[in-house]
């Protein structure tokens, strides 16, 4: 009878939060780097993969009435949002209806047109994603692509985070958000270090888990592993060396990556055994356990540079400060305890 | 030999109990026994009186910023 006060209500509210399944926004980032897909053509073709991804998107939408998706594609020349289309959902429907009437006249237009046998919400998303992705794949210059090895993963992540920020945090919609990065992992792929790290920190700060599904035969992407580790996401490498094949992509996606962030505290996630956080020396490219770090620009070196200048920011180090470091670095730091 | 007294057991908040005690304080003809903070034993014939007085007191003690308006609608 006397139990009405603020504290008890608050407790109840938070309890509800955990039990209640809030809808979630899934941001899927798809690798649209054509040469990479060519490389694993024997295992899975891009159209098969896209079909699997679409099923996965549908599955995500099926989980909750208000779930939504955001699809981003990236290749060597950049990243862009494939879904939702710019003009918002309302006009897509009308556009799509136009398209449909067009396609009737044109005969066959999109690769696979699913008529009324599909749930309306799924159909809208699938069609837009498919068309846009196909546009993206067709409009890229293959020759150029071959040459360029830098990837716009950082761009795609930035877009995803920006989108989530706007639609979840600025709009204060009660949604959870997560990112799934589907990468083929070209073996010569280069990732922009600082922007990617910035993305990871932003995701960490906003508590957005970043899941990574890697298909290609290339070695593990250390950055992406770090991304998963620091944002509590799932990292899965679906390649032959883990005796997995991208053929069953849809099954891997549905069993590994479907779990909603709200459910994750309750289930055992596939864990990464060891994430490499060690650094490499800027000068010798050697992996270092113990290294020298420039106090100005934080570059890592395994030895004191011969000319006493930092190789990256060109700061000159004074003789005096280096003298202390010249010896085998076992000097114990003095810890002074000062009594008030 | 234990004593059995006929009465009405009242279960209420401590605040309401205080009010009943207050009502009783003028004539001491209501309360038979104060059992604890939330229980009282009162005279069987006085139940309706208590309820009435209580309602009146509660209404008096309710803060109503627009007394007039509320009266006007007469709900």
């Amino acid at each position, binding site marked *: 009878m006397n139990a009405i006060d603020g504290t008890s209500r608050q407790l109840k509210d938070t309890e509800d939060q955990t039990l209640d399944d809030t809808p979630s926004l899934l941001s899927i980032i798809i690798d649209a780097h054509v040469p990479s897909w060519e490389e694993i053509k024997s295992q899975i073709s891009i159209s098969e993969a896209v079909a699997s991804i679409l099923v996965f998107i549908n599955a995500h939408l099926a989980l909750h009435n208000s779930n939504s998706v955001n699809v981003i594609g990236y290749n060597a*020349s*950049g*990243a*862009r*949002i494939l879904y*939702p289309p*710019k*003009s918002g959902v309302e006009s897509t429907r009308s556009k799509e209806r136009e398209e449909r009437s067009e396609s009737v006249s044109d005969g066959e237009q999109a690769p696979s047109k699913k008529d009324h046998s599909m749930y309306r919400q799924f159909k809208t998303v699938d069609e837009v994603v498919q068309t846009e992705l196909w546009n993206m794949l067709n409009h890229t210059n293959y020759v150029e692509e071959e040459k360029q090895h*830098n990837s*716009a993963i*950082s*761009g795609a992540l*930035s*877009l995803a*985070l*920006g*989108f989530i*920020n*706007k*639609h979840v945090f600025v709009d204060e919609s009660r949604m959870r958000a997560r990112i799934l990065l589907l990468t083929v992992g070209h073996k010569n792929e*280069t990732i922009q*270090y*600082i*922007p990617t*790290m910035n*993305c*990871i920190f932003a995701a960490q*700060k906003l508590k957005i888990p970043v899941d990574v599904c890697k298909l290609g035969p290339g070695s593990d992407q*250390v950055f992406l592993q770090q991304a998963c580790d620091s944002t509590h996401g799932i990292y899965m490498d679906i390649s032959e060396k883990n005796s997995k094949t991208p053929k069953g992509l849809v099954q891997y996606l549905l069993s590994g990556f479907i779990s909603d962030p709200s459910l994750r505290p309750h289930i055992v996630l596939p864990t990464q055994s*060891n994430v*490499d*956080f*060690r*650094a*490499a020396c*800027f000068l010798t490219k050697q*992996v270092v*356990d113990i290294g*020298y*770090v*420039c*106090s*100005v620009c*934080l570059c*890592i070196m395994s030895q*004191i540079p011969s000319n006493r200048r930092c190789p990256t*920011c*060109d700061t000159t*180090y*004074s003789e*005096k*400060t280096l003298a202390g*470091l010249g010896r085998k670095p076992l*000097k*114990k*730091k003095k810890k*002074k*305890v*000062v009594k*008030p | 030999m234990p004593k059995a007294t006929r009465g009405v057991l009242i279960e209420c908040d401590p605040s309401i109990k205080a009010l009943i005690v207050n009502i009783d304080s003028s004539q001491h003809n209501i309360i038979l026994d104060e059992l604890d903070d939330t229980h009282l034993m009162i005279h069987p014939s006085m139940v309706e009186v208590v309820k009435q007085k209580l309602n009146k007191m509660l209404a008096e003690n309710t803060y109503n910023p627009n007394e007039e308006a509320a009266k006007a609608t007469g709900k």
Partner: protein
Amino acid sequence: MDDSDDDYIENISGDEYQGAPRRSRRNQAPKGAGGSVENMKMANGGYSWEDEYHRSWDVVQEDEGGSLAGSVAGLVEARKKRHIKDATPFQRGIIRNLILVLDFSFAMKESDLRPNRYQFVINHAIEFVTNFFDQNPISQLGILGMRNGQAISISTLGSNPNDHINALTAAKKLEPQGDPSLQNALEMARGLLFHVPSHCTKEVLVVLGALLSADPGDIHVTIDKLVIDKVRARVIGLAAQVAICKELCVKTNFGDASYYGVVLNEQHFQELMDEATTPLAESQQSQSANPASLVLMGFPSKVSEAAPSLSASDAALTQGGYVCPQCKVKVSSLPTVCPCCGLTLILSTHLARSYHHLFPLAPFIEVPCKNAHKSEFCAGCQSKFPVVARDAKNIQADGSMTSRYECPTCHSHFCIDCDVFCHEILHNCIGCQARSYSLYQVVVTKHKDAAPSLKLVMKRPDPDGEESSRPVKVRVVNDNEGPAWNEGGQAPTWGE
């Protein structure tokens, strides 16, 4: 907007009455920025109470349709704009050692800050600890209190945010009492910072509620000692300006008074605290004081174990952790100093987290009306911009009614939300990233069995789209003449 440099100097040199250092890149606050700092400083430079009274409803103007939607949106935007900070690249002291000194004296019982000064400051200090370590992962923090004329230690210099937060939570129960002693607190801070190596910064942040200091000796001597020890002080006053605090700030910051701020309201306090989380820009004098150096650091590897084992850092059994590469002792959390051999242990990601201080994202520029038609959607979140007529004349001169902000590098247009997000959280320009070129391109070379090494190559596309490589210049503030390019002959370049 292009003269943001001059703007900055102006603020350093003059305006001592304003108390608050002004870092906003906008000269004039848009009208009616709703209780913001700028509101207090009126155009004529006088006090706010000397100015004509502004009625909030005078600010709002209806458009032709009689709708307020436009004005309301403008006000909302103006509020968000305040967050945009100065972003000229400075050389900064990245490895910091900061002592936070909180006032626990009688003056903190005042309730002009809700619920009272004491609770308010502690709550914000807890937030500050989180932000500080978020921004400065390889730095150290210690907390002191001033109470009963003594300096009391709340938490010692350390890099684990939880230790500090727990200490502060425990300190909430202390009743503020007695007089504060600035001198005792500064002396204690000086002692704590004594052993700090020269390549790190030594800083003191004082939050002072009282207007007095009950000192046992001559505080001027202490201030001189701080100067000799190269400790830099920043003071946030809760009541009014105190001469000794100003002297402290001016002397320890090479004549710069902008490190002393007196709060106007709750929000302003938050802003002043946030300012202290950004690493200090290194001036030439301070640079000579803290010569660049190499620091020995260990990069431990993560281990996962089936059974818990003893962790040296918190003297308890823990499952998994990191192994110090030098003495092989296990610690449970990073960054930390190895309790056994004293080596600084960090992850390479911690270093990466400080990079955005070194390479800040250039501020976005408000798009003038004549260019507004170029874009229809935000390049970040794809939300639709308000349509602006090309010959719109009725647009107020001060506010950006186009609601578009342009990245100076990739010329993409962004909405205010994405602008704030890019600068505050992401530190990337979404447009530059999505187009796969950026100001600083870091080329990563793979290595067989370790994290890739990185090499930074500067790329800056010219306005007409062509890309040209130019080295980065790290700017150093001259104390008297204002900012200047580091003209020491060879500009520092990234890469070989």
